[in-house]
């Protein structure tokens, strides 16, 4: 649509952008306040950041969260990539569609349902709630998104590449490790980062399966926020904001590199033909 945006349109989106960002700016601004409430800014100070860094409990929770995010992302990337290969190699169309719709169940279900059903599941298995139940849940709900990010790369890969490898005498294992995996690698990396953000963002599922001893940042923020305002949370918000900026940056860097390499690859393919 070539149409230029009208002046009213521009004013409108400026207002909506302001509304989208005011809460975030407000939140981070007060992390620098000397006071103790999120009203009446009382001069610049870094004391809430100091409190945050000296809070041993918070540090442990932070490390837990990162550990869960990294471990679950590695596992879900491996299983999700295998799933993508399984879906890609499905012989019948019907088989592929069944797998894909089962795959999307966890993506569309409300978080409470995922949380509640996992809670029943772990209790039925007599698995104690804590680190392992949270880790398994995170792996479980990250797998479908990894699959959805890897599958398009597999589908766009020309079958002639694997056929050529086979004809030249590569074993299936060699074809996988030398041809397929390098080709789909950008999708795998994108899936890995998406899985990390899913894990860091999750509250509801973790809240259900976490039990008493183990906590992640989201759950901690919830229980503190229920008790009222503490500017330490604002300081935490400031740090998490920078963290998510870095993640967004890395993710988009990968994405643009992906499209750049896809462009190059397609030129190569055209040349081959």
């Amino acid at each position, binding site marked *: *649509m070539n149409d230029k945006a009208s002046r009213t349109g521009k004013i409108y989106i400026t207002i909506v*952008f302001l509304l989208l960002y005011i809460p975030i700016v407000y*939140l981070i601004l007060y992390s620098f306040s000397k006071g103790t409430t999120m009203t009446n800014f009382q001069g610049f100070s870094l004391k809430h950041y100091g409190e945050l860094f000296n809070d041993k409990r918070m540090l442990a929770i932070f490390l837990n969260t990162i550990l869960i995010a990294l471990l679950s992302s590695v596992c879900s990337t491996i*299983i999700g990539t295998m799933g993508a290969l399984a879906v890609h190699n499905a012989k019948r169309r019907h088989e592929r569609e069944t797998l894909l719709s089962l795959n999307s169940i966890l993506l569309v279900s*409300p978080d409470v*349902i995922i949380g509640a059903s996992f809670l029943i599941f772990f209790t039925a298995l007599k698995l104690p709630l804590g680190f392992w139940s949270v880790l398994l849940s995170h792996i479980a709900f990250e797998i479908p998104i990894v699959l959805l990010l890897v599958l398009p790369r597999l589908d766009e890969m020309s079958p002639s590449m694997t056929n050529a490898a086979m004809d030249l005498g590569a074993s299936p294992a060699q074809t996988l490790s030398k041809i397929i995996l390098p080709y789909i690698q950008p999708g795998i990396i994108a899936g890995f980062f998406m899985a990390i953000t899913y894990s860091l963002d999750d509250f509801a599922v973790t809240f259900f399966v976490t039990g008493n001893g183990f906590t992640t940042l989201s759950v901690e923020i919830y229980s503190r*926020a229920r008790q009222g305002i503490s500017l330490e949370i604002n300081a935490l918000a400031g740090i998490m904001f920078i963290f998510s*900026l870095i993640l967004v940056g890395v993710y988009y860097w990968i994405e643009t590199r992906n499209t750049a390499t896809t462009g190059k690859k397609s030129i190569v393919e055209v040349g081959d033909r």
Partner: protein
Amino acid sequence: MKRNYRGLFFTPYVLWLAMFVIAPVALIIYYSFFNIHHHFTFANYQEFFSSGTYLTMTANSVLYAFLITLFAILISYPMALVISKLKHRDLWILLVILPTWINLLLKAYAFIGLLSHDGLVNDLFQFFGIPAQHMLFTDASFILVAAYIQIPFMILPIYNSLTDISDSYIRASRDLGATKWQTLTKVIIPMTMPGIKSGIQIVFIPSLSLFMLSRLIGGNKVITLGTAVEEHFLTTMNWGMGSTIGVVLIISMVIVMLLTNTKRKRRRTS
């Protein structure tokens, strides 16, 4: 081709499907037929469909989710329309996506400050001569915050379907004498229906179950299906009743999916 290796990829993934997709759903349906003393019974469903509290709660949470979705569409559609016409639209849409990467609880927490009695919103009200209001812990604040959180998720699919429209359609409608308004209502909006529908799907279903928002922002006044599930599972430990409400949630999810899915499938094959 690689028959022997297929099983190798298949096993972990199918195992995951069986353990974490099929088994949990089966278990939640199974549990919904048990009462608090672990006896098989239909009483949970009887209670759900005969008690006034559960029925009003269901009606309320559908109404809340409907209002949240409606507000999100009303704000997002013009937003997506204007952004799709901007010069650096990729950059602007990135700015829409950015807030979704910030933890939902932090955003909710920001509103506890913004809407509090001495918060920014009330300061603004007083500036215009309106007396300070108690906004926190009301239904209106819950809907406002939920809509705030969902707006980016609504803008994205609408924006994508807008950028898919080829210029030639717009020009054709102009050339044939349609006014700007007619082009919008007869060409652009019908052509972006798939985007609106997937937006509804993405926003409506989670809005039925935002228990953390109703707890933090709605106080204990706003009780949705999600809040009830959380309460039955984690507070009163009546898992049977919680599962029954969960099954109702799953069914409403399926209904929403069916209502919003028909068109998209047909489009993909064309």
